């Protein structure tokens, strides 16, 4: 499976994306609404024309191949089940069109129904099913086809939160079990992190970063990726590299020490990124890098999210503390940001600087 370069439309919405996908890999396309992730998926499916570049599946360029001949199966956001057909007919429709023998179809549908625990529901119509069951049928329809590629278009966005978590796990298990190359579109970065073998973070038609979830998390390639992946989002502070090149001087004044090897020249305007979970409240023995006044405390049980503002800063920082931490509004927290957890971005281009 080799997806190469694509661009699309009279107003360009996808500005050339290169991506090579290994057999059996689960690729998650993630980004905010309107970033082109669904369009990209639909181009792979053959529902949108490819303006330039080419898409190939197992070495065969499929730009001009009809969707039905691409050997793909798709799960739609609203499931797109045929409302007048039973579950069995829904799942077997594609096979019947391909003229497969009746007993062979039955065996395949039965097998898929067993995998998805749909055995009891085969004679029902979609309107008699719950959201989660419809979701399973939509997946069943994809599985029976035994395609080279699965395409998921935000399949969980119509489910309630609890079911979404459950189905997420099921999709992951299913994909591992079938070992079928899959593309999965979502705007939910948690889904992306948990499901992906590799993820493509998209913004405004550009693939900002392609990589394994933890790599993307640990080394976001741009400000956009840094802000999008991880919840709560990374904190950004504007500053300037100090004259000795060893620290960042924040707008507010205090310098924050950097590790070696960032490679940024002294005096360069940068944005410093630090994740809420990396900020620490300094106790005895260590001097704080800066202090911030608490404006809001969100207690989540396991964690406590503290919104705090550095004097003179334009927006709040978020600090993730242990659930047992006792903080209240108006406190001034002495905070430190370990050098190893700092991310540097160029203030103009938003690109990552150094390692």
């Amino acid at each position, binding site marked *: 499976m080799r997806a190469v370069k694509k661009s699309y439309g009279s107003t360009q919405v996808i500005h050339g994306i290169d991506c090579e996908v290994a057999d059996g890999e689960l690729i998650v396309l993630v980004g905010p609404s309107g970033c082109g992730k669904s369009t990209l998926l639909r181009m792979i*499916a053959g529902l949108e024309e490819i303006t330039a570049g080419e898409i190939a599946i197992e070495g065969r360029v499929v730009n001009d191949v009809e969707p*039905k001949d691409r050997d793909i*199966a*798709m799960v739609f956001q609203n499931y797109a089940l045929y409302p*007048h057909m039973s579950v069995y007919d829904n799942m077997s*429709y*594609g096979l019947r*069109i391909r003229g497969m023998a009746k007993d062979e179809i039955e065996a395949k549908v039965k097998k898929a129904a067993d995998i998805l625990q749909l055995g009891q529901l085969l004679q029902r119509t979609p309107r008699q099913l719950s959201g989660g069951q419809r979701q399973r049928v939509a997946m069943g329809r994809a599985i029976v086809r035994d395609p080279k590629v699965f395409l998921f278009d935000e399949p969980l966005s119509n489910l309630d939160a609890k079911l979404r978590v459950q189905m997420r796990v099921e999709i992951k298990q299913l994909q591992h079990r079938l070992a079928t190359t899959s593309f999965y579109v979502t705007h939910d970065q948690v889904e992306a992190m948990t499901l992906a073998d590799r993820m493509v973070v998209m913004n405004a038609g550009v693939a900002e970063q392609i990589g394994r979830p933890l790599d993307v998390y640990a080394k976001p390639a741009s400000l956009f990726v840094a802000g999008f992946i991880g919840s709560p989002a990374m904190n950004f502070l504007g500053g300037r590299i100090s004259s000795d090149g060893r620290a960042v001087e924040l707008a507010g004044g205090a310098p924050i020490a950097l590790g070696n090897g960032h490679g940024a020249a002294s005096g360069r305007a940068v944005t410093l990124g630090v994740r809420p979970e990396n900020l620490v409240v300094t106790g005895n023995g260590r001097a704080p890098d800066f202090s911030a006044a608490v404006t809001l405390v969100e207690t989540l049980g396991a964690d406590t999210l503290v919104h705090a503002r550095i004097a003179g800063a334009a927006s709040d920082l978020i600090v993730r503390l242990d659930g047992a931490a006792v903080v209240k509004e108006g406190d001034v927290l002495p905070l430190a940001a370990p050098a190893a957890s700092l991310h540097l971005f160029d203030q103009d281009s938003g690109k990552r600087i150094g390692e």
Partner: protein
Amino acid sequence: MVERRPLSNLIAHLILWAGVIVVVFPVYYTLIASTHNPRDIFNGEIGFLPGGVPTENYKAALFAGAKQVKTTPATVMMLNSLVMALMIAVGKIAISIVSAYAVVYFNFWGRMAAFWTIFVTLMLPVEVRIYPTYKVVADLGLLNSYWGLSVPLIASATATLLFRQFFMTIPDELVEASKIDGAGPMRFFWDTVIPLSRTNMAALFVILFIYGWNQYLWPLLITTDAGMDTIIVGIRRQIVTSDANTDWHIVMATAVLAMLPPVAVVVFMQRLFVKGLVETEK
């Protein structure tokens, strides 16, 4: 209802009953008159109770027609009406569902022009274009034929528009799912569009059947052969204004007979579209 008060209930019921009487009384009186002998009707002595000769009257109406002016028996006229109404209803549904499918799902050159052309015909019912249409039908040699009766009434925009509106509500994902499942345009039409349109088709059938059954002006113009009379035209022919007496008992019986098929269609099809309404998804 916001609140229930005995007085407002009473007024509401009085109005309803007044409406019912206005609608039902003529029908009831026709029914009563159709069971009396001609002499009583002529003397105005029939009252509000059924008369003694229902079978004779209906037999005469069905198989012989009126005596004073020779008219076609009601069986023949009902068959004519039935064929015409069915041809119009089925023909209209078939043509409009196909054209609506084309206009909604295919991107061909002149698509919007085609749509607007269809739309404009809404302004041209048969009565407006009756002379040119008559000329065309006459030149084609279709006078006094079922084709002549029905074809000019088949072409119309209402049903096409209705199907178009309905097709626009079918989610695009369904089309896409079909594409991925490998269904071409024809398969999608037969396997998905037609089954989903079933209730619309049933409702339209009822409306169009009655529309066809009640046609008067057009059949009157293009049929000269009494054997091609439709029942609506036939009733008019039975009523004599000069020279002879009208066989009112036959007219009344024929009128009752003319009412039956539309009632039957509504009663039978009703089950279909009530079911459809209940099952509507989401």
